[in-house]
């Protein structure tokens, strides 16, 4: 239970950084923290204390002896999606820096809203 609460705390820390920070690099880092917190949550869901790696070597091993392999497959997918997001965010940050000469969102005010 403590682990779940701590993971949720990491998630909220990432959410705070994303919403409250004015530096776009810090916003990107906040989003990465959120991403990792969700992945960690998925690991926790599949985790079983003293569980074996999910490779069945003999047919009489009960399924409950293994950790749940499905969340691990989900994490791999989620990491790949996160990579695409990160690459795009980094590219946007570079272009924004070239245009404005700053990472501060307070100086990026060409939109009316």
């Amino acid at each position, binding site marked *: 239970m403590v682990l779940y609460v701590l993971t949720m705390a990491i*998630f909220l820390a*990432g*959410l705070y950084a*994303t*919403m409250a920070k004015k530096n*776009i690099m810090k*916003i990107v880092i906040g*989003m990465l923290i*959120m*991403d990792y917190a*969700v992945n960690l*949550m*998925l690991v926790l*869901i599949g985790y079983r204390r003293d569980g074996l790696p999910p490779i069945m070597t003999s047919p009489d091993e009960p399924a*409950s002896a293994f950790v*749940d392999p*499905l*969340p691990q497959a*989900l994490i791999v*997918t*989620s990491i790949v*999606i996160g990579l*695409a*997001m990160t690459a*795009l*965010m980094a590219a*946007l*940050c570079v*272009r*924004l820096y070239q*245009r*404005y000469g700053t990472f501060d969102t307070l100086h*990026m005010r*060409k*939109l*009316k*809203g």
Partner: protein
Amino acid sequence: MDNFQLLPLLIAVPLGAAFIIPLAGRLRDEAAEAIALLVGVALVVFAAATIAAPASVYRMGKWPPPFGIVIVGDALSSLMLLLIAVLSLCVIIYALGYMKRFTARPKFYTLLMLMITGMNGVVLTGDIFNLYVFLEIAAISSYALVAFGTEDQELEAAFKYLVLSGVASSFILLGIALLYSKTGTLNMAHLAKLISGAPADRVVQFVMALFIAGFGLKAAMVPFHAWLPDAHPSAPAPISAMLSGLLIKALGVYAIIRIFNGIFTVSGTLSTILITMGLLSMVVGVLLAVGQWDFKRLLAYHSISQMGYVVLGIGLGTPLGLAGAIFHMVNHGVFKSLLFLCSGSVERSTGTRNLKELGGLWHRMPVTSTTCSIASLSISGVPPFNGFWSKLLIIVAAVQAASTLGNVAYVIAGITIFVSFMTLVSFVKVQKYVIFGKLPEKLAAVKEAPVRMCVSLVVLAALCVGLGVFSQVALRKLVVPARDAALDKTAYIERVLPESESQTVMLGKQ
């Protein structure tokens, strides 16, 4: 062709095209455009075929559900597929003319194909994690498309859109993870079976809250709407039409209908939250829209307002309300795409989107002006155009809800009518400043948009009129089956997980 092979093709064909187009584009830009056009036509044919025989389930890799990923077609999916295919084709034809002034056109069509892949996938999939993956495919390609012009404003809007939409994605993934830990399955039919049997507990309520925030952000409902008025106007006009006409529906509203009607049940607190969000979006969206002088920004605020109608219809929880919501979703897709494409034509010919600098285009651009007027009348809910019928359905549904909601229902209906009136006011302003009035001297030499752009304008305007005049046919043939498919949870479960195979389904966490 056998219907079983048709459903995966709707995802595979645009995905394959997205890889072939950049290669073809190395030879000639025209080759890339030809492939995109071909795929657009093919998708319309496939989608029309699924309408003819909607109910089918395709098991990826022959894994029996709930283990493998299933692709589920039903009347609601087919309707969305047809909407996506028709609007995409119109947008591709329009883009052939509009995108001439941009460089790297093959990349534009690649991203467009990826976005269509993602939306078709979201609409078809029967697996909730797979839904998240397709949602991200569509969303990531849309971030890149918003930034396509790489000017200051476009980059800024794309970054804002990316951050808020990325937060929404994290919420949705967290919700999916918690749902998996609760039930031990990702298959949507199996989830529906497990959750509807059990009493609602804290975990399920938390998941619902995460989904409302996540999909509400994707659908730009009012507390979460800040990105839309920046992102939609900044994109090139064909992409604005795709974003406003399709993306917020496929990723936001369709997912809300599918998940909240299919897995959970819309009633009680959930119903109140959806109604409140819908009403807030309607009122705030339209009030912000009235004051705008930027043509595309005004349209973007109206998207928020009109999506409010749809979410209100879903939140009422009555069959009539849901039918109105689905019909309004389709109608809004048609007339909002048309309006954005018209604004693109105006911007391309005159070089400005400021309403104060425009005027009298009636004489110089007859096709754009006529179609723009038709779309304005539709969105304002003037009979006999399509927007009138769907708004009427939602208002009638709101009045009928008086039996459960009491007198609040009349207030809701009143607000709905008021918002419709404000929409009319706002579009009278557009008509006055863009189409009628005096032609400024600067614009004396303005020319009508090229034929290719006009073709898609005329097609969409014809759809607006057609869906209005033949609204009863459209309701009976398309909307009501879709509504029934969305509401009939047991039939959905039975189709994906046939009773005869349920002995093999040994699931649950332990």
